């Protein structure tokens, strides 16, 4: 029975619209601020809600660096965005490969110490970042991986959660499929490539999106282990633009923030199609 109560519909719409406004307002503010000049932002109280006219120069300065009207030197964020991009791609790809293979081994093979291995992976979930970050730094430093792409991404690749995700998924694959593949003559890796991989496409897509954003947003670890400005990710770049003893160019800060938000937003939008397609496709 479909309820027909116009009052309720109007009320729910109002609440939802209010939610949308609350969520998008900060974004709008950032966008508007990035199109104005630094004096306009700091000197007009409250800040104007309408887009300004300084968009082009602000974004140019934010991306490629330069000197502003107030005399502060700003290093462009383009190289930092590149660092972020590389890390944000290496981490999900590495994570997916490693956890898929681990889950494959745990689910489909019997080997000595299998249970111990499984519990060891599980136990790593219990260690918070703060506990392991000191020792991780020491290891990375002694391996000479500071200030490198390898150092930025490799320590973040191993993941118990992703392994569990794939383990649970592999457990739903019917045994008969494995047996049919065995009779067809497919060895384990062949089965992995021809059957498991295509069937896991949705899980892989979901994991990719989540890990891309996670890798893109990494702040603590890069802060600890990079001293070379060339290896700073863009989220560190934003922080460095603010405060200190020099004058904060808020419009450039806002512009950099907008630029930093674009790639993850793009990834989510593009991968959404995959999710839906994958959800519709799943039916054995």
């Amino acid at each position, binding site marked *: 029975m479909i309820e027909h109560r116009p009052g309720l519909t109007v009320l729910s719409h109002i609440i939802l619209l209010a939610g949308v406004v609350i969520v998008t307002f900060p974004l709008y503010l950032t966008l508007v601020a990035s199109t104005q000049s630094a004096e306009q932002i700091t000197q007009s109280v409250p800040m104007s809600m309408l887009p300004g006219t300084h968009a082009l120069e602000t974004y140019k300065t934010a991306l490629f660096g330069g000197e502003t009207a107030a005399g502060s030197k700003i290093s462009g964020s383009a190289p930092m965005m590149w660092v972020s991009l590389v890390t944000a791609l290496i981490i999900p790809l590495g994570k997916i490969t490693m956890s898929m293979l681990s889950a494959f081994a745990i689910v489909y093979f019997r080997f000595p110490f299998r249970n111990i291995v499984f519990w060891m992976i599980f136990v790593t979930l219990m260690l918070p970042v703060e506990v392991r970050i000191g020792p991780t730094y020491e290891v990375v430093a002694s391996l000479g991986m500071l200030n490198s792409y390898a150092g930025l991404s490799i320590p973040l690749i191993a993941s118990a959660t992703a392994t569990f995700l794939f383990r649970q998924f592999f457990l739903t694959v019917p045994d*008969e499929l494995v*047996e*049919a593949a*065995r*009779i067809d*003559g497919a060895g384990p890796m062949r089965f992995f490539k021809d059957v498991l991989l*295509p069937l896991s496409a949705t899980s892989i897509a979901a994991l990719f999106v989540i890990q891309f954003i996670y890798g893109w947003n990494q702040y603590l670890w890069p802060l600890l282990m990079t001293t070379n400005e060339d290896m700073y990710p863009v989220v560190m770049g934003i922080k460095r633009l603010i405060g200190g003893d020099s004058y904060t160019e808020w419009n450039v800060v806002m512009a950099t923030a907008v630029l930093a938000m674009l790639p993850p937003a793009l990834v989510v939008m593009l991968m959404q199609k995959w999710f839906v397609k994958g959800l519709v496709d799943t*039916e054995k």
Partner: protein
Amino acid sequence: MASITLSRVIKRYGSGKNTNQVIHGVDAEIADGEFVVVVGPSGCGKSTLLRMVAGLEEITEGEISIGNRVVNDLEPSERDIAMVFQNYALYPHMNVFDNMAYGLKIAKVPMDEIKARVDKAAKILEIGDFMQRKPRELSGGQRQRVAMGRAIVRQPQVFLFDEPLSNLDAKLRAHTRLEIQKLHRDLGITSLFVTHDQVEAMTLAQRMIVMNAGVMEQFGTPEEVYSRPATTFVASFIGSPPMNLLKNAPDAKPGTIVGIRPEHLDITPSGWALQVDALEMLGAERLVYGRWLHGAGDELVVIRCDEARDVPELGSTIHVTPRADRLHGFDAVTGKRL
């Protein structure tokens, strides 16, 4: 030569104190081109036996040979077999053509040969129109035919069927049964077919293996199994309604069980005295349940009457005479035929 030989085949699970033996030594010789059905109740070990022939289960003791080769240590793909599963086991992300071609691709068969074989199988099974569809776009019966097509293109020495009709509705089951019969007539490939349904067994088998709790109770033609069952289990498993196994028949030797099928009892003016306890009208036949008048416990005798005869009233006394040549005797302790 694609005969199958099972020699003292034993299957055990677990080890040490937790050993569970599920198949207790099966010996059987299946001739080249024969269609053999393994039938039995759930848990009797028939699927385990099939899977041992397929190579999906380890053979604990004994030997299985396909053709003239002992296959105990061979991988399933090396045994020259093909299997049709109860749940079809089609690759969900591949279309029908790719499903059927997958095994051949792995065996590095050239593409035109693959296409030729797939087309031929598709014609036999009438699935030529679905080549580009994925399994989820097919009905259960169509999926089962694709699964059979996948088995046919391998051109194996042996077909193995693991309860392939159990997931189909009754009408489709009857139709597919006939298709499998026809397939066997046309291709003549040695087949091992596992089912719990005795109707499938009786209609498809050239010979049947009747299994119970891991023991092969009888291996014979449907006719032999029906008219000369080797044990009380076989006697009651095959035939519907099941054979009467009577401990209290008059003139029976002590320590024996008299077996007589409901259709071999006639209602006559004199003979065994029974009181009609219940009636079941099934349209084409009527079942009369009678209790011994000489007060021997609560053993019921089932008599099948055909349409022509008048059905006795509930509670009335009737007399039945068994057809002399259709009486069976079994040892009450071992259950074996006397």
